[in-house]
């Protein structure tokens, strides 16, 4: 079952509120998700709505990706952060 646009917008706003996301980051997500389609919308809500930390991490991650563009050095820095976050996440889960 996919998600209607109305339902998606409601849930997205609720996520933004819960995460206390700044306006510029909300706009960033709105822009990126505008044409993504119902399937991606549903996946987005499923993945992030229950995990505020993950959402905040990837909000920052997305912003950095946009700034990095095709800069390989910056992208590698982003990837390094991803690995570190992932390791921490797994460590937390296994504790």
């Amino acid at each position, binding site marked *: 079952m996919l998600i209607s646009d109305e339902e998606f917008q409601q849930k997205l706003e609720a996520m933004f509120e819960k995460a206390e996301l700044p306006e510029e980051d909300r706009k960033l997500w709105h822009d990126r998700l505008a044409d993504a389609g119902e399937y991606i919308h549903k996946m987005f809500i499923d993945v992030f709505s229950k995990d505020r930390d993950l959402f905040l991490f990837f909000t920052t991650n997305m912003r950095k990706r946009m700034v990095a563009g095709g800069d390989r050095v910056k*992208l590698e820095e982003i990837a390094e952060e991803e690995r570190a976050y992932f390791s921490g996440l797994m460590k937390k889960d296994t504790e």
Partner: protein
Amino acid sequence: MLEGPSYNSEKRPAHGDPDDVGLTLPPFSGRFHGRPVYTSEGIPLSAREAPRFAERPDGTDAYPDDEKVPIESGLDGLYAYIRDSFPQDEAKKMLLELGEIVHTCEIASGEVVGKDVSGTEQSVGEDLPVRAADFVEASQERLRNFLEKHPKLTRYFKALLLVVSLAPSVAAKPETSFASDREMKRIYDDGMEEYGRRTAQFGVSRILGGQERFHDQVLDSERREWDLTERGNQARRDFIVNAYRFVDELNALENEYRLEFDRVMTRPFQNEAARSSAMTDINRRYLIKVIELENRLKDLSSRVDSITSLSVFGPLTGGRIRQFAALKEKMMRLALERSGWTRAKLEDALKKSGIEIPKNALDENEESTPVETRSYRNRSQKDGKAAETRGAKKEAAPDSDAQFLNSLF
């Protein structure tokens, strides 16, 4: 009723027991339906380090020295976690299974194409869309199974893939015509409602199979041509969506044509001349319709680099384009042979209908036929001949028809 690629849950890839999608699956054989599968670089998949994220034959870790490590953090992290967190035997099975899922998704998403032993790309066959659907279905089932077993591994993995697929820096390169997953989704959302459920499943495969390519594209300097890419993708998107619709329209047209033809064949007429006249009328009418349809498709294709470039969108779309070409040839041949028109008369009829006259459409498209459709020509010509034979038996067409046609062109 639209006739798309069948999606038969009974059909499964040759490897693996469909009822056993767990950790007991054998490693990917590198063969698909008995044929060896090659990577886009022409390397046999079976010869590829399989799984390339596992240890090398000498027991050393294959990943640390891999130059792609820094940009493959998603899968790399997942693989590393599995490797480090489970007993060796279990980890190996999990890695093999995950590797096979990714390979399967690569194939389903068109990343891997079939090539013969000489390295020449094979014609994939009109039935490939069905096979691709099988792949997608199988990979979905196995992916679901895998994720259910290891839910804590998937949260980060999914989130990363989502962000990567949404990031603006993953623009498609015009040369490779590889649309981002976001755009693939839009293609489907806009134009493929009738394939809804399968579409959603295909989307997941695209995300999985395409992740490495997303990263590669991030690092590609031509990614900077964002506007150009966007325009190119828009044109390709239009073309693909319409190509799918055109095939459906052509299918509907063919069914309609056959119904009308059968009706004329079975309806009583005052004499055979009247029946023949009615049949000719039908043939002429449908000939014009087919040409009109082809013109619409060509008009759209002129906005993209070439029809052949569309094959990179994957076998599903490539198959549709080929299906259109084969159907069109069959329809045109049937209708033309039975229309009793000279070329001049046909051109006149097209003009009167306001339809542009395709330069080569009436002489088998030798020059204008896309390269990728040529492998189907023999088949479609055979189809045409078979249909002609059937038609001849059924219709008892005047003997002069064939001579007349030959004399035209």
